[in-house]
């Protein structure tokens, strides 16, 4: 049986997942096309893992329907298991099995040749560790092993739940490179949950932001920022006490916030036109800058303004 190339990789229809007290996923409907790379962003408890695990067939929706490559999990388990590659938010492998043996174990479920094991092992950079027991791997190495296990069967749909959390910047880059290579062959669909907006914008053209089980924004990075036109940001620490009313009166300044400590944050229409006016006003108040930073609105800022929480909290 082969994949129907016209079917979307994933289609959700009014999916709800309730636990005793919480509604982890609250009435979601969207589709993801084949070959797309999609990031699922959201703070802790947003419902990302629950959603991803329902797509993986490891949890079942309270109501609503999920189609993967046009097929429901009921009755197509065998087929779908072969198309999917996953890495769970947290998996520990068998302590006293080596990296190679672990990969070989999983390869045997798909009946893959030994060459594939070696291929994947070097892909995720664990060649040197082939004889190391999984219990003796570092956290990052363990995550790379988990990714390797997910890649073994050359999946058509890859679902990675926080694959780079806790990794150092170099290892994170390495994983990004592996995923970018997959993107080139246009055969794989990727859904990735993350707390890093940098990761989302680097790897994925589509971003879905979730909170409290709902999608609160989605689109490409540019679309998101354009659609939620929140302006630009000037942040500074002044050398003296500033009269904020005067600053707020400057045309083009939308609002003023106390960011952290002494830091003031101005949300403005356009840095280039507003910044000179701000500097003039500060001169008038005979106040110098201890620090000054101007930047565009980022996904992080967008996230904070949408949810009132930061991504990493």
């Amino acid at each position: 049986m082969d994949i129907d190339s016209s079917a979307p990789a994933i289609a959700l229809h009014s999916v709800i997942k309730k636990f005793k007290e919480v509604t982890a996923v609250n009435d979601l409907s969207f589709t993801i096309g084949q070959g797309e790379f999609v990031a699922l962003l959201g703070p802790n408890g947003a419902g990302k893992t629950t959603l991803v695990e329902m797509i993986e067939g490891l949890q079942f929706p309270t109501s609503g329907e999920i189609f993967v490559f046009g097929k429901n999990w009921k009755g197509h388990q065998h087929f779908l298991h072969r198309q999917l590659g996953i890495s769970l938010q947290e998996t520990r492998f068998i302590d006293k099995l080596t990296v190679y043996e672990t990969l070989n174990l999983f390869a045997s479920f798909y009946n893959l040749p030994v060459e594939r094991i070696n291929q994947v092992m070097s892909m995720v950079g664990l060649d040197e560790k082939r004889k190391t027991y999984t219990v003796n791997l570092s956290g990052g190495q363990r995550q790379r092993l988990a990714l390797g296990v997910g890649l073994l069967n050359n999946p058509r749909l890859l679902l990675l739940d926080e694959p780079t959390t806790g990794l150092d910047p170099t290892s994170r880059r390495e994983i990004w490179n592996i995923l970018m290579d997959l993107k080139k062959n246009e055969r794989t669909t990727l859904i990735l949950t993350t707390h890093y907006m940098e990761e989302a914008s680097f790897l994925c053209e589509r971003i879905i932001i979730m909170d409290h089980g709902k999608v609160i924004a989605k689109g490409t990075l540019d679309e998101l920022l354009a659609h939620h036109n929140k302006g630009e940001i000037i942040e500074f620490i002044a050398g003296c006490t500033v009269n904020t009313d005067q600053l707020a009166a400057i045309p083009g300044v939308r609002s003023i916030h106390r960011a952290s400590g002494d830091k003031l944050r101005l949300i403005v229409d356009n840095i280039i036109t507003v910044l000179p006016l701000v500097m003039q006003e500060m001169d008038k108040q005979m106040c110098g800058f201890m620090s000054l930073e101007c930047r565009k609105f980022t996904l992080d800022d967008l996230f904070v303004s949408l949810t009132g929480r930061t991504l990493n909290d």
Partner: protein
Amino acid sequence: MSRSLIQLSLIHFREFVREPGILFWSIFFPMLMAWVLGIAFSSKPETLESFAVVKNSEGPYFGLKTLIDSSKLKINRAHQVEYVKVFEDSKLGRTTFRFTYTSWDSALIMLKRGQIQLILKESPSRLEYHFDPRSSEAKLGYIYLSSLMKNGKLHEAGEDIMPLTRIGTRYIDFLVPGLIALGMMNSIFWGMCYGLVEMRMKKLLRRMVATPMKKSEFLLSHFIARLSLSLLEGLILLTFSWFYFHITIQGSIAALLLVFFAGDFAFAGISILVSSRVSNTRVATAIVNAMTMPMMVLSGVFFSYHNFPDFVIPFIKVLPLTLLADSLRSIFIEGAGFHEVMGALIILPLLGTITFTLGLKWYKWY
């Protein structure tokens, strides 16, 4: 065997040889236990009978005085006066009598502490024995002392004692089949219950069922691994006991293997049932303990269960460990064949099938 079944089974064998703790507890510990207990109960019998004697102002009891006069006087660590008399008997071995002179109150304390089993209260005309009639040890002390004062010997003239030392009737012959059964139970309960729950807790189980892995192969691999490992453990213990204590199997080897298989199957089924919904290894530990402890005590591994009250014996007899230990024992030392162990050969697989089916029905894979 398919490649995935081989890989799945290999997990257990690799763990077995790579985890030194497993090797120790499943191979050396049973051997050590057989050795210690075997030695303890097969060395020359030695009995110690301890009495507290409470004096009376009117004078001593004649029979006891004669005995005490021929005893050695000692002062013990508690500064009490003690008389020790040793009897050597070629048949009964060495029996030591120890009499401690003390007051009634301190005699009671000594009794509570288990330092003595009987209190003697003497007067010239009578000797009172105070002891707990439920304690067979105390009763034996009474009979020995009484016989000794009457005849100056531990047994009557005209009676003869013939010690049994033929292979098959020693304590070690009783013990080893029980130890093999116990080892099997422990190996399977711990290996499977704990192992399966640990996989679930680590989220490894859900990772594995998200692949085309066959669930039947997964469970089968556990069974294959446990069966072969418990067979190995049993074989090693058997070889050791054969070598050291000259234990032999007098009954049918084929029946023995079948009983072994049936026992493994029953324990595996129970393991799958009790671990079917547990997702925490601490709970698993508690469950395994709750199952193994009572069976270890009740099922007559170390001592015959016939000393338990009559009404619980029918219940004890159908415990899986009892069925297994009794069948192994009857094959080992009574020369039993298929016919004699038929009961176990029917009940154990039946139990295994029922528990396995229910367990599988409720099994929490995700």
